[in-house]
């Protein structure tokens, strides 16, 4: 779907093109049904755009597909840049973890509204509105109840166990979808003549760990690596010999349509 977002900088509304799951269609029609918010990226600590479904209280991360020299034709207008955004469901626990780990520096049990406090990204409090929050927190914290109020403390042991489940789930999904996880970097569109058809289990675990690392702080990623007993990377496969593109190609592609 394409939606106009007025940046208020007088340049006119810039249009963005999004690919979102079909079940968001109803929410998108309601005023403020879908909200784009800037929250903290749990890996980098910097801001990133997330999508909130206010109706069902779901969190989506926003990825963008960017290549040079693209534009969109949207009805009668042209939008330069040609970016394509994807909104995909994301486990909000990753975001909550960021705050829990930070708060753990104080070493105390704290109520959630004290933990998820962010002056830089105030929209973080939206996370507190998520349904089933307590159940989620169970995976990564120790909990105490005093006078009907809940207090939480980050638990590394529980978190690592939870992350291991994530790793297994992700690995299964990668296998089902036939994603190439070999250590050789290659383009999705590349079909290798000498295709290594059996990616080793070790490759899968390493790849999945790497993928999840994009969603957790570095220290936790290192701990997870030890927890999963990831071996040191084996000697990488040699790359195929590069093809020399002949100079003459330049002359042919310069002119004409």
């Amino acid at each position, binding site marked *: 779907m394409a939606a106009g977002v007025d940046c208020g900088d007088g340049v006119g509304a810039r249009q*963005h093109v999004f690919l979102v799951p079909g079940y968001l269609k109803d929410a998108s029609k309601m005023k403020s049904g879908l909200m784009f918010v800037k929250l903290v990226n749990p890996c980098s600590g910097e801001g*990133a755009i997330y999508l909130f479904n206010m109706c069902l209280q779901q969190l989506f991360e926003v990825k963008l597909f960017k290549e040079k020299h693209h534009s969109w034709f949207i009805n009668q207008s042209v939008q330069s840049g040609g970016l394509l955004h994807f909104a995909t469901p994301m486990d909000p626990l990753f975001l909550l973890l960021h705050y829990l780990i930070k708060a753990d520096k104080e070493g105390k049990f704290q109520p959630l509204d004290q933990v998820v406090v962010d002056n830089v990204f105030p929209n973080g409090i939206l996370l507190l509105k998520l349904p089933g929050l307590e159940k989620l927190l169970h995976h990564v914290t120790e909990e105490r109840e005093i006078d009907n109020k809940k207090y939480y403390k980050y638990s590394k042991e529980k978190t690592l166990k939870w992350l291991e489940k994530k790793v297994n789930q992700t690995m299964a999904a990668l296998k089902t979808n036939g994603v190439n996880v070999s250590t050789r970097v290659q383009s999705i569109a590349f079909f290798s003549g000498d295709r290594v058809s059996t990616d080793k289990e070790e490759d899968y675990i390493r790849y999945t760990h790497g993928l999840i*690392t994009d969603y957790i702080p570095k220290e936790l990623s290192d701990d997870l690596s030890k927890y999963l007993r990831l071996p040191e990377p084996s000697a990488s496969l040699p790359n195929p010999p590069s093809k020399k593109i002949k100079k003459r190609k330049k002359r042919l592609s310069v002119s004409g349509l």
Partner: protein
Amino acid sequence: MDLSELERDNTGRCRLSSPVPAVCGKEPCVVGVDEAGRGPVLGPMVYAICYCPLSRLADLEALKVADSKTLSESERERLLGKMQEDGNFVGWALDVLSPNLISTSMLGRVKYNLNSLSHDTATGLIQYALDQGVNVTQVFVDTVGMPETYQKRLQQSFPGIEVTVKAKADALYPVVSAASICAKVARDQAVKNWQFVEKLQDLDTDYGSGYPNDPKTKVWLKEHVEPVFGFPQFVRFSWRTAQTILEKEAKDVIWEDSAPEDQEGLGKITSYFFNEGSRVCPRASHQYFLERGLESATSL
């Protein structure tokens, strides 16, 4: 000559033919092959065959078919009319190759040059005559390139037939002259009635001869350049003349598969994977995202 099929769709190729005279199915026949419109930068190229029984060659000659280039347009049309009138012993067929087909063949990723296109078209027409039941025993072909190799190739394709490829064959053999007339009439008509797909304003139909060294044609080309889309499909983009004008007058194009040296500011992909210094975060995304050209959206 009914070119209405071409007028409907002038982006590909179109074949026209006369009915096969009965006598051509019985008696041994000679086929002449010639073309028109090979050199111009505008309009289609037409390949034509003309055939008649060996026994009636004298009658064909009596029609005074001569080198089509020496005849005027009206003389050619008159002669074609005569051939069709006396159609009980003369048959013809032709292929109109649109400028679009010529351009896309010559500019394709797998190059299909004009000579190959021409030879294949000629071969196709001769085969067509055979398929239609013409009793072909001799073929005479006019050539632009080297006659020896061309003759050898054609002879190989048609082993039971005597093939002669010669320069200026249209002046030597009446069947070739007749084919030349068919081709020229068809080309002239196609050019005159060209349906411009492009909705052009102020279309000037005075483009001279269409040959690249004709000043009138050059002026016409310059006046009809569109900075993004180039020329109308009437123009052969693969012609050096057309390309030169595009280089000067049309927008520059950056092609995605240019050699890496041409692209500025493209970091090496390996730089994402080696530990450069002691970077903790921010770091580049995981291989999964990099391979798919995905990154986190940090602003809208």
